[in-house]
């Protein structure tokens, strides 16, 4: 029997070790930090570092890289234009691999470095949950260009109307899923005239939250829910789910989650002969989705935060720079918001320094929280200012649809009750 018990023991040990190791790998992206600009900033130049946290490799990395390089361009612009005299800004980008635990480590690492003044990110709401406390204890501003889960700014009882802001240091330039999910349900029920929705989510903070809001609104508009299911992130076989959807008689599939899974779901769905559109949120609005799903993506829909970046005259230079530099990732989803979030920090630093006679005070991080709260400027992706919860006052949303292999904006507006 010795051999068998050893087999069982080693299997258990190995399973545990492999599970741990799956979240343990990370690459060092510190080297990617900016070295652009600021060469002629004079002798009294101070360097101020803005941390960036997003998934830069693996799942969600296409949209995550858009955040990193959006911030990079904002910093380069500030340095060339000398927005804050005597200060050279730098980016320190860390990869959270869309894992909450890694995000928390990164937050701790950023807080520990005295020249890091504030942070942009993360991409995922679930990762943000694990980072907010770390930044708040250090009185350090965190602005996410992409988190949409309402509870992050409005507390966990937001749905019942009792909104309390949990962290004073947390801001976001993306509007919440309370708006996005309702906006999507409105479009599906009223414009597309869909009656029967199958709702799937990825069990993550963002995906499950968004799918729940969509489901509630769709039902209150008289729609039926043909079924619900939950998938594991990182899976690639969805044939069982596809069979269920096929037999449910649904006329639309709503997916709360990221492009990594939904691009495979839509492909397997259409391959099984189920020609209903898949609709999702901003986490799915990525060119990678269309590239992977190919023809199967045709007719699929997403809602995303803000107005389309390429229709904004202010964003033209940004897009040109992004393309000219050949940066990887998709700037379309959050790149503009990341630029604006970074600019809000840069403006805040300027305000803090102006109030202190042109020098950076010793408690600059704490002072920056108040400065960012007072943010009020026209960014490249729209007006930037924050309400009493740290939410953006820009509540624009856009529905995009895949037409001839491209995301085409079909409706832009604000969600109004």
């Amino acid at each position: 029997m010795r051999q068998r018990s050893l087999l069982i023991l080693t299997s258990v040990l190995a399973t545990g070790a492999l599970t741990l190791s799956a979240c343990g790998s990370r690459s060092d992206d510190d080297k990617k930090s900016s070295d652009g600009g600021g060469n002629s900033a004079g002798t009294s130049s101070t360097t101020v570092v803005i941390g960036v946290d997003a998934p830069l490799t693996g799942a969600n990395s296409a949209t995550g890289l858009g955040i990193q390089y959006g911030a990079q361009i904002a910093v380069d612009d500030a340095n060339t234009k000398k927005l804050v005299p005597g200060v050279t800004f730098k980016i320190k980008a860390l990869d959270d691999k869309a894992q909450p635990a890694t995000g928390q480590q990164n937050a701790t690492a950023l807080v520990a470095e005295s020249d890091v003044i504030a942070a942009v990110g993360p991409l995922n709401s679930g990762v943000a949950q694990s980072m907010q406390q770390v930044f708040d204890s250090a009185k350090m501003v965190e602005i996410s260009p992409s988190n949409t889960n309402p509870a992050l700014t409005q507390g966990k009882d937001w749905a019942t109307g009792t909104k309390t802001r949990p962290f004073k240091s947390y801001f976001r330039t993306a509007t919440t899923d309370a708006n996005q999910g309702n906006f999507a349900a409105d479009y599906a029920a009223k414009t597309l005239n869909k009656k029967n929705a199958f709702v799937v989510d990825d069990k993550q903070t963002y995906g499950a939250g968004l799918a729940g809001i969509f489901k509630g609104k769709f039902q209150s508009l008289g729609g039926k829910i043909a079924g619900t299911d939950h998938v594991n992130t990182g899976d690639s076989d969805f044939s069982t789910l596809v069979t269920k959807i096929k037999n449910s008689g649904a006329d639309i599939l709503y997916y709360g989650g990221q492009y990594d899974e939904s691009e495979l779901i839509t492909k397997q769905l259409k391959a099984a002969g189920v020609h209903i559109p898949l609709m999702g949120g901003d986490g799915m609005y990525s060119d990678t989705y269309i590239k992977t799903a190919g023809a199967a993506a045709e007719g699929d829909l997403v809602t995303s935060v803000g107005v389309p970046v390429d229709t904004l005259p202010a964003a033209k230079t940004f897009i040109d720079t992004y393309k000219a530099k050949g940066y990887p990732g998709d700037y379309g989803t959050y790149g503009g918001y990341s630029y604006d979030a970074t600019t809000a920090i840069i403006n805040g630093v300027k305000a803090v320094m102006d109030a202190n006679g042109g020098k950076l005070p010793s408690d600059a991080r704490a002072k920056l929280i108040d400065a960012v709260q007072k943010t009020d400027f026209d960014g490249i992706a729209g007006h930037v200012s924050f309400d009493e919860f740290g939410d953006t006052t820009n509540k624009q949303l856009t529905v995009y649809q895949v037409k001839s292999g491209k995301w085409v904006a079909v409706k832009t507006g604000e969600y109004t009750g």
Partner: protein
Amino acid sequence: MHTLPQQLANGLFIGSMYGLIAIGYTMVYGIVQLINFAHGEIYMTGAFGALAVYTNLPDGMSIWAALPLMLAGGAIVAVLIAVGAERLAYRPLRNAPRLAPLITAIGLSLALQQAVFLWYPHATAGKHFPQLPGDGFDIGSVSVAPGDIFLVVAAVVCMSALATFVRTSRTGRAMQATAQDPDTAQLMGIDTNRIIVIAFAIGGLFAAVAGLASGLKYGQIKYDMGFQAGLKAFTAAVLGGIGNIYGAMLGGVVLGIAESCASAYISNIPGMQQLGGEGWKNVWAFVLLIIVLLLRPQGLLGERVADRA
């Protein structure tokens, strides 16, 4: 229950893939009693090898013409890595305590994964894999995609070839002898080192076939795809009776069908709504493993063998 044929087919397809990978676990275990945890990564490198060949083929070449070359490329990469791992990592530890090669296997698994992550161009996110042309079609109430056909045909062909090889060829019989008792086999003039290398090579070859089939089926391969697939295939091998090649294939198919039926039907049982669905399929796969191991500790087709140690 009118979806049952389709769900069984779904399970069969994914199960064939588990089975193909499980062959590598079971053959190596059968001969050297080593759980080669790096085998999932060999499956992954097989898929990347096939993709590397495809990217370097001239544009406009038909996928059917490219397929044999991709298979050859994937197989060469996977077999070389499997054999190299045996020669460099496992053979020096052949007589070491059993935990040592196991930890080596885990280390090797991580090393291979990170190597592809770092050095394969743009492998930090999912890579697109070419697709077989043509749409899916229906057989009765079951809809099937071209990639599924490739997978099942590949599994059947590989399995029958392996069965014939092990039963009838001289080397195959030498493998059986080595599995029964390596020392006596060596005394009878069998080069056991050669047999062990062949076992690793066959495992690598099957993993490469599975890797190619997976790429064709899902249209995407990732540097970390070997982790979960390897874990599932190992489960399939244990379920079928580790050391038994037919058991590995049967275990794979049983596991695949159990997964697909569990996620399809458990939520229909009153009171079990919360425990069904896609998100729970891994849980049910392991519940099945535990039940089978409780009732038949040697696995479905495994034989109760006396302890050698």
